[in-house]
């Protein structure tokens, strides 16, 4: 549960007697005063409206809105001072910008942006306040109740994280094989930057039988589960899985981790898991791209559209990845299934210990793919690939379709002579390895092989590559902090030092994180880090023969 979250009782709703539940965020200086005045003036508006006072409308995070929706609100209203009147100079302008992101996101998710509204109401506009409330309530009544299946949060399970469970974890992750050599510690990016974090101690405590406390350790949330430690471990103790297991226990104890973006992305995923809305996620599909509803090849796009909406101010254009992927396939004569009904793979929920929702998403996605008749599923996202490959198969057993990452698929297409690359490309690139693809799934060669097969693209390797590749600093939208920043900058310096024209990556998350690191103030000279960041698939598509 997040700060500023609202408790709303779920009422039994029938169409006949539908009284919408609306959360209204009001700024202290204008709209809340407006509401007060409305009250003083005895102006009537529906009782379903619950007002939450905030100091400024600029305080409203997009995650508040999603959280309200997720928690059962039928509509969300944000009110603030008129533009120019803000008590805090420009807080309301910021709120306005953010609104765009919220509405786009709600549209993509299929919740619909019309369940959200932003209004400027001054302290004197009691009538406008009441009117807005009435209108919005009416509007929501028209829309009907929030169709999201609200899931009552389970009460904390005090038995979680018991020593028996920890023993199983030890067994499953091979933690008993630890010979306390400490090599993991020496390579752990987090431990080397964060004076608190000691990954090996977590396993040692488990082995010592002090496991019961482990699920309450804050350190389990610091790990980026990048797997550098396991890659180094002589006996391949699966630290990442060990940590994930502990997080599941922790979640069962009711722990809510501190997530970046205020938990917006996790909310988004939970909404997807618990709804069957008609999404609007295919806006990016241009006319020249050919896609199908059924076919042999399914292209699993991942969260590009949502991420583009969320990070729109950064103009990342992650959907270029999807466009490029489809373009490549089309060039090769493949018309992939791209589905508007695709949902998040659940990766991030999985890594904060929310297995129940992952299972829902999995069931949905597997059903979707099966219905499409696809025999091959292609991914451009490293996290989706890992989640299908490892987590889905762990839960659902072996999957009957073939899962290939775009880098592997590219090799297949090129080797089959289906792709031609143009002359004149002259690009020196270096490659940042996403952990989910490389260390987790063992895909090291495919991207390199593919690049080697493309005219005019030369790969210059960074110092830390393959299983020793450095981490982008963040995983599952957790622990975005100073340590993460250091790691990101280190990595960019490393990339820059190669002298390459651009650094490529294969994971939208790596892309976002590395991009983020050098936007703000940085502790080093800009020229040490500034190197264009590009997505692998996009670069490949650009090199295609027209």
């Amino acid at each position, binding site marked *: 549960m997040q700060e500023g979250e609202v408790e709303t009782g779920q009422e039994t709703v029938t169409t006949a007697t539908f009284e919408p539940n609306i959360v209204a965020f009001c700024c202290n200086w204008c709209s809340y005063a407006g509401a007060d005045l409305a009250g003083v003036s005895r102006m009537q508006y529906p009782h379903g409206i619950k007002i939450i006072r905030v100091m400024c409308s600029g305080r409203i995070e997009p995650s508040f809105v999603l959280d309200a929706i997720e928690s059962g609100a039928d509509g969300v209203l944000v009110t603030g001072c008129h533009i120019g009147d803000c008590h805090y100079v420009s807080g309301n302008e910021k709120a306005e910008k953010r609104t765009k992101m919220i509405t786009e996101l709600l549209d993509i998710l299929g919740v619909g942006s019309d369940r959200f509204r932003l209004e400027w109401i001054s302290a004197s506009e009691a009538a406008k306040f009441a009117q807005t409330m009435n209108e919005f309530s009416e509007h929501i009544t028209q829309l009907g109740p929030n169709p999201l299946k609200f899931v009552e949060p389970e009460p904390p399970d005090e038995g979680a994280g018991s020593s028996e469970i920890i023993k199983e974890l030890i067994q499953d992750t091979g933690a*008993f094989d630890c010979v306390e050599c400490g090599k993991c510690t020496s390579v752990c990016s987090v431990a080397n930057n964060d004076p608190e974090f000691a990954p*090996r101690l977590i396993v040692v405590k488990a082995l010592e039988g002090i496991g019961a406390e482990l699920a309450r350790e804050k350190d389990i949330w610091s790990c980026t589960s990048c797997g550098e430690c396991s*890659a180094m471990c002589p006996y391949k103790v699966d630290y990442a899985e060990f940590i994930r297991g502990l997080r599941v226990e922790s979640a069962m104890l009711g722990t809510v981790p501190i997530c970046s973006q205020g938990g917006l992305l996790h909310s988004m995923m939970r909404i997807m898991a618990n709804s069957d809305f008609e999404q609007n996620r295919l806006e990016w599909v241009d006319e020249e791209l050919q896609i199908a509803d059924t076919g042999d090849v399914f292209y699993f796009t991942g969260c590009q559209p949502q991420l583009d909406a969320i990070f729109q101010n950064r103009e990342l254009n992650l959907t270029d990845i999807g466009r490029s992927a489809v373009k490549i396939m089309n060039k090769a004569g493949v018309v992939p299934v791209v589905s508007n009904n695709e949902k998040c793979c659940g990766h991030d929920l999985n890594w904060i210990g929310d297995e129940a929702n992952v299972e829902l998403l999995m069931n949905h996605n597997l059903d979707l793919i099966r219905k499409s008749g696809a025999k091959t599923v292609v991914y451009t996202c490293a996290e989706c690939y890992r989640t299908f490959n490892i987590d889905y198969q762990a839960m659902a057993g072996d999957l009957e379709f073939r899962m290939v990452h775009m880098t592997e698929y590219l090799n297949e297409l090129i080797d089959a002579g289906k792709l031609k690359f143009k002359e004149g490309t002259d690009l020196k690139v270096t490659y940042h390895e996403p952990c989910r693809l490389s260390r987790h799934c063992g895909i090291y060669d495919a991207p390199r092989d593919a690049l080697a097969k493309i005219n005019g693209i030369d790969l210059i390797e960074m110092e830390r590559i393959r299983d020793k590749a450095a981490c982008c600093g963040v995983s599952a939208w957790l622990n975005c902090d100073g340590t993460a920043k250091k790691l990101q900058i280190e990595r960019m310096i490393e990339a820059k030092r190669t002298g390459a024209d651009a650094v490529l990556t294969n994971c939208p998350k790596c892309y976002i994180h590395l991009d983020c690191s050098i936007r703000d103030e940085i502790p080093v000279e800009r020229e040490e880090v500034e190197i264009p960041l590009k997505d692998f698939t996009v670069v490949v598509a650009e090199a295609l023969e027209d």
Partner: protein
Amino acid sequence: MEPEEQPPAASEEPTEEVPETPAQPEEKVPEAQPGTEEQPPETPTETEDQPPETPATLDSDEVRIGAFICHCGTNIGGFVDVPAVVEYAKTLPNVVYATDNLYSCAEDGLASIRDAIKEHKLNRVIVASCTPRTHAPLFQSVCEEAGLNKYLFEFANIREQCSWVHMKEKEEATQKAKDLVRSAISKAALLVPQEEMRVDVVPRSLVIGGGVAGLSAALSVARQGFDVHLVEKEAELGGFVRNLNSLSLAVKSAAETIKPLIDDAMSHENITVHLNSQVEQVNGFIGNFDTTIVTDGSSKEVKVGTIIVATGALEYIPEGFYGYGMYDNVVTLTEFEILAKNHKLPKIQNVAFIQCVGSKGQDKSYCSRICCGVSIKNALYIMENYADIVGEEGGGRVEVDVSVPEISSRRRRRRRITSAEGPGAPGGAPSGGPEITIFNRDVVTYGAEHEIYYNKAREKRIRFVRYSLENLPKVKLEGEKLAVSYFHQTLKTDRKLLADMVVLATPLVAPPDASELSKKLKVPLGQDGFFLEAHMKLRPIDFATDGIFVCGTARGPADITESVAQGLGCASRAAIPMARGFIQAEAILAQVDPTICTGCGTCVENCPYGAIRMTDEGTAEVLAAACKGCGCCGATCPEKAITMMNYTDEQLLAQGRSILEGVP
């Protein structure tokens, strides 16, 4: 190695290749055959009936020296004026012939030496060329071919120690070459022919100790065709292994595993087994040891050529450690094995092993090598065989896959799903099984085979916890249980576990009677009380004293495989003199002049090989077969009663003086 198929004797072989070092005495003797048939023991005889190698030309007292100066291509000739050296040599006293060779070691060079010996009736030869360390044997054999005793040859090294190191000073180098030649000639004039001693070897071995090492040694010696007397203190063969329950690498029990070894030894026609016996007395030297074996009070004299010591070791008794002797369930590793072997183990679920009890800088300074492996073996034994007495539901236990899965392929099924499938599903951890902790200072599972067991132990969830000498664990009785409290080095906290049994891994120690035996055999013990080999690296199973060998845990802690290998190794080493049938010592020997010797015993004390003994007359005597010719005794003999043959004071002084003389 059938007699018929023996190659011709070495001395008859044409020596065409270039030997690389001074010959060892063994190299030049005609080879012997492994005695496949019974040979009666013989008393040692210095074989005076050897045909003397004295050349015909040595019948006069006149010293006739031939000097051969080598150009070695340009290696010497390029930097030393060889003809000038030859001319100079001709002017030196006793030199009757001097010449140069382009390559003295080439066949034509060798021929010129052979011919000159005959033609000029030479009775001393010097070659000035390269280093004696590689080429002396070659020229010595040429002398022998020409009928000249090989000890009448002397070498001057004018290549490695002259031309090559003074390449820019031709004149100086030539002068030095002359000096070196003069020095060699001055020594040569004093050389006397030497006879190499031959002592016959009794083709019979005494093996002391009937454990695995001794049995392996005895069997191999026997199979190589020699008699063996195997002396065992106990009433049966098998040694320490008889105590053991299991063996790390074995499928069968310890007793069953070594049974074939015992059966073979008991039934081998060449082996005489003496049970309940001890070696009482040992006299003599290699080839001819007189030993007395006492069996139940009656003694028997046995003459043997070689002796193999395989007396084994004992387990250290950890008095005063961790409540040993105080609490019932604190036992040593061997006691544990005996309990397990006799199926007398109590009901145990939680077991703690404590390694290095009394070793590595405690009562004993050393690491006992095998205890980590043995503890792991026993821990696995509990895990694998005692589930029925320790676990509630032995049947429900899970075998863990031995291979280490890749992270990418590891598929951990979610617990929610697993639990739905019921207990015992793959991936579910066993519950209720034995819990074993091994407290160690370092897990010493060296090599490939031991390490496999360490890995297996961890896969079987045996826990390893490290402690340091500064923070030893403590064992206390708490109710029914033994509380082991310890300091966890990584977590930096005090911890405690409750165990049903504490097993103490104590080092192997030398048995108390080892020192007595060492005195009887006149072989040394090391600081740790184990027998001390001749050289830690290259003579690991030999004693410095020839003819006596050591194997197994008598030499130091060793596992069963190593003991067997060492036993076989000793059999090989011991068979060498017996197969040859005699000992031939190089004649660079110490010689005691009994008329000067006062019997002070200084030399006896100083001889590293025990090659000098006191005679009944009270004077020292050198055992030619054992002397290596270092000269240590001679240099300290207070009375100067000892002469070092071939390196006499006179010879060394003559060389030195000749150098000091300068050009005469």
